[in-house]
């Protein structure tokens, strides 16, 4: 217990993170960032740069969405699970 207390005090004293940041940061970044991503993807689909009627287009679309979801999951786990591990 003293070891954990020392860790908290050291963190507060260093002027850095005083307590774990919650889900709001993740939600903001992926909400606003997700909007930017979605607008970009929509423009690509509308302009025909990504053509989901073709196999290559579907693969690209899947890859783009998978990248977004992958990052969201990675940083979500870091945000919510690692401090409790």
């Amino acid at each position, binding site marked *: 217990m003293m070891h954990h207390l020392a860790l908290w005090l050291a963190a507060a004293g260093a002027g*850095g993170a005083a307590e774990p*940041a919650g889900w709001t940061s993740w939600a903001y970044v992926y909400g606003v960032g997700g909007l*930017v991503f979605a607008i970009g993807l929509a423009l690509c689909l509308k302009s025909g740069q990504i053509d989901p009627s073709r196999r*290559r287009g579907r693969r690209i679309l899947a890859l783009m969405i998978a990248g977004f979801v992958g990052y969201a999951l990675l940083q979500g786990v870091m945000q919510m699970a690692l401090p409790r591990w």
Partner: protein
Amino acid sequence: MPLAVVQQVGHWVDYTIIIAYVVGIMLFGLVFGRYAKSTSDFFFGGRRFAWWLVGMSFVATTVGSYSFIKYSQKAYQYGFSSTQTYLNDWFLMPLFMFGWLPIIYFTRVTSVPEYFHRRFDRRCRVMATIIILVYLVGYIGYNFFMLGKALNAMLGWPVFLASAGVALVCAVYVHFGGQTSVIMTDLAQGILLLAAGFAVLVLGVILLAQHGGFWANFPPAYRTAFAGLNRPAKFHAIGVFWQDGMANGVAFYFMNQGILMRFMCAKSVRDGRKAAIFIVLCLMPLAAIAVSNPGWIGRAMVNAGLLPATTSADQIFVLVADKVGGIGFFGVLMAALLAALMSTTDSLINAVSAIAVNDVYRPFIRKGASDRHYLAVARTVAIVAALVGVVLVPTFMAFKDMYVAHANFVATVTPPMVVAIILGVCWKRFTRTAALATLAGGAVCMVLTYVKAPAGDGMTIGEWLIHWVGHGIEPKGFTYMRSLYGIVVCSVIGIVVTLFTKPEPAARIDGLVIGSIRRAKELFKGSEPNEEPGERLLLTVVPIDRPENEANVVTLHPDDLARLHAKPGDMLYAADRRWWLGGLRSAHVRAGQPGGQPGTVAIDRRSLAPGELGPQTQVRVEKIL
């Protein structure tokens, strides 16, 4: 506050490693001087490189000497959230990969100012040239400054002299080898800086294992992906998102001439996209860990009692390196810092050279000269750019917080450009008058945020302007929010002025906006694009002699053409079968009328020479367009 000079300095093994590295990388870069025979070679490496080479070069360019020190500092103060800066890029990938990249590649623009000239007009080109040159040269100076500080801390060398020495090495191989030297040295330097960063992590974890372990000593509050939403004032998730994720991210991928030239070196748009995916999904996370981990290790060391609790953030990289490494490792780490510096500034120097020649010298000072003349000018400008960067070092010495200094510089210069580029690419209605208003008006609005005169409510005029997008952040945290303010203000200016001005004729902007990329492909190829996927074939080169105007036309057997799904006139790419050359030995050619023997490709000797392909060489041939 000067960085502390550590004790483990100056062993002859370390100095040997440092000197050997500097000499070695310079000689390695000079080897590729023979590939720079034209301005196209000097600036774009002949547009021949493979995706993985482009990707590694990108990361080496992105990770500068300041990166290790800056991100270790933030990592020490705020933990894993220091990685947010490097992990924001995927949001921009659709627009970059399928909008900006194909536009600049297929329209063969050599710079962002040139795009501005073609999309808008000459006035926009002039403004963009000034802004981008300030951005690039400032970045060069900042890199030199950060390395000078590190060398001062670790070896006791004077900051200015250390900067000047490294600048000389960089300038020499860029002068002789151009973009090919940049890319090939970046590959070596990228591997070194990632390896050194991970070596610190491994050694730090091993050291901490004897004192309770890294994880047990790393506070839970430091393990999150993001800092607090809008506090602390000096580092918060909202600010990092807008400053680094949006403004800096768009500036890097859409405006940074060095980065753009990297993607323009790719053998095709498809390889450029593969490079982007490789970068964002694989290399950037690795780079984030490599540059941040000394701060994490340092925080754990403080809690384990291995470093004093009073250790300050700007000393952490140097102190951790001192703690974990033995004789020789210190030299490797210094070599990695040098690698980080040189791999960033060589790209910037080459980029300044490209803009100076293509956007200043060629259009305004001497039109219609030979390519050989412009190549000579480019080489000279490379030296001058390095010199100017060194002269800027004292300016950066005046700022206490390195990250804030860099953020101020980027935040002020980039929002007007970033908004003009994005609106220009995505919105065909966006007019030239609106673009000029965005650049000029946006710059004025950004400068206003530095006005210190009081505005009431305890805020200055600058703070009052920013507080409208402040998200509840304290005014001392407004440095980050300046970018969001700039994006909003410039967007409003751009949209409002557009709605009151006459649209551009559609034919004039064909190929320059996202909805007209097909037209850009037609112009690039000179005929209808052929995007049917085909095989990649292994063929044997047969040198031939063709008429002057058919020097890049090749002859393939009908069966081979069919497997490529290619027709006469299609653009092909032939590269040495040794994949690890990354396209260094390759040629861009066009399919001629079918003929010849199966399994062979008959190529004119003049097309073979630039890529050093010879008779009987086995090449992999693929269709590009």
